[in-house]
């Protein structure tokens, strides 16, 4: 069996209603969002949707031919499981088109209570091999898995040749150390992690300090970065911190670059991938509009004629203008050393 050529759906981020509308208006096929609590992995102050806003967003998307997936993709805290199952209940009640889950208990809950509601395995579950996908499919009847950003395109192609589970990959936005669902770096310094509290580098622990010639970034008092004047700044995450190791100073864990796979689109579409995910629920409608517009144009152009598809300079410029690090990388998808 070889992977068919698929025009993938474009799954776009929204941290608020204006962003959701911007994503739909810019041609997104799907918008993913989370509720305003710790049940999703973007639990930042002032971000995300109330039940009323989610309702309005779903109605808007459906009226315009788009779908909405709701992420409930953190691990329930012991004794507080109700808050997480309630989020699944709410997603079903509001008419979401799918729930994005990572915790097995929640997957089981969703399967038993809402068998007809599509279940997508979150990247937070970190499932990256055939056996793992089959396990989730067999036990929880998942229809799709969001793959962790550790696989090469060849790995993904091989996976898609075997599995009946749809796959979704990240194509744009911030990168992390690519150990989704298993990264505890933030916890070591702040006590909070994306897996449990839904937040990496929680804002309460972040401090930007203007010094004479530099901008210092501290996480719970620990100096993690120092930017020179006019040097492009990045998110205050530990993995993108600048450290001294073996006598050298630099980004020892992760460069502060953004993922951008525009040039790989023809290969991606030949790898049997069902959906392309844009990262950035923490961003505003302007970012969403810009990135979704570019990706829409690129995906349509590639699907229409993959052979003569070329990345346009203006697409790259527009993406770079709003990206962290202002640079693009194909991340693990193009790692030759593997």
């Amino acid at each position: 069996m070889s992977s068919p050529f698929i025009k993938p759906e474009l799954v776009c981020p929204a941290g608020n209603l204006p962003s959701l509308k911007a994503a739909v208006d810019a041609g997104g096929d799907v918008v993913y969002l989370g509720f305003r609590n710790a049940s999703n992995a973007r639990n930042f102050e002032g971000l995300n949707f109330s039940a009323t806003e989610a309702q309005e967003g779903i109605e808007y998307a459906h009226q315009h031919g788009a779908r909405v997936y709701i992420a409930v993709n953190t691990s329930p805290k012991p004794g507080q499981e109700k808050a997480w199952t309630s989020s699944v209940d709410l997603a079903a009640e509001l008419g979401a088109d799918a729930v994005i889950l990572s915790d097995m208990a929640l997957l089981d809950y969703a399967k038993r209570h809402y068998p007809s509601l599509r279940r997508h395995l979150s990247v937070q579950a970190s499932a990256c091999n055939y056996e793992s996908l089959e396990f989730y499919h067999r036990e929880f009847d998942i229809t799709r898995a969001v793959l962790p950003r550790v696989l090469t395109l060849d790995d993904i192609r091989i996976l898609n040749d075997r599995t009946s589970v749809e796959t979704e990959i990240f194509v744009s936005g911030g990168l992390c150390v690519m150990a989704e669902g298993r990264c505890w770096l933030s916890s070591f310094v702040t006590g909070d992690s994306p897996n449990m509290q839904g937040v990496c580098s929680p804002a309460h622990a972040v401090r930007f300090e203007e010094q004479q010639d530099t901008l210092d970034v501290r996480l719970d008092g620990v100096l993690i970065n120092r930017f020179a004047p006019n040097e492009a700044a990045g998110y205050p995450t530990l993995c993108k911190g600048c450290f001294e190791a073996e006598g050298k100073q630099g980004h020892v864990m992760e460069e502060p670059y953004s993922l951008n796979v525009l040039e790989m689109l023809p290969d991606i579409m030949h790898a049997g991938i069902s959906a392309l995910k844009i990262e950035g629920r923490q961003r505003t409608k302007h970012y969403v509009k810009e990135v979704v517009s570019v990706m829409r144009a690129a995906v349509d152009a590639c699907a229409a004629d993959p052979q003569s598809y070329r990345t346009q300079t203006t697409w790259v410029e527009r993406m770079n203008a709003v990206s962290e690090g202002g640079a693009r990388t194909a991340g693990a998808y193009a790692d030759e050393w593997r």
Partner: protein
Amino acid sequence: MLKLATLPEPTLFLRPVPASLQARLLQNILEQMLDEEAMQRFAELSDKRFMFRTFDDVVRLGMTFTDNSIRVQANPQWEADVTISGNLPALIALCFSLEDADSLFFSRCLLLTGDTASGLLFKNVLANLDFDLHAVLQNKFGVSTVDALWRMAGQAIAGIERADGDATRTRAWFTKSLHLSTTDQTQSLRTDMNALAGQYDAMQHRLAKLEKRLARRA
């Protein structure tokens, strides 16, 4: 996409404007744009004092949130819990949700110091508002006043254009930011700029002639 960092710092135009007037203007516009839900969410910030300042300190406005209302104060003497610094266009873009705040931070046009969590909440509540600055301004100050301001903005842009030879991006930013989307409005702005540019050329010509006459007399 236009980067605000590339624009000239326009606080020059604000120097003659009294700080109290700047504060009143900002408060008036924010009151127009903030809905009930936004004010309720700002209640979480009731014990926080915000400072908005341009990098060159021409603008220094304090902001507090009490009893479901917002208060903007010029040059407050208190120490702020959260300070949001930036060049003027970036501060305007943040307050009126005209550009992506994270992009402005990455390009060092915007900086948040002090209580990051409160600053993030402020940014995200504003980003959640769906509003049109042009409509808000017209509603508050009247269509003719705002249109007059538009013409002034056009003249200011023309001035910059004559000064640095390239105000294309500045004009594009104004056009985008202020929702000058209709052909008529854009055309009107362009006509104003061209008229001003013509006047400037005529003035330069007269000055050159005057200089020559003075030189001859000398």
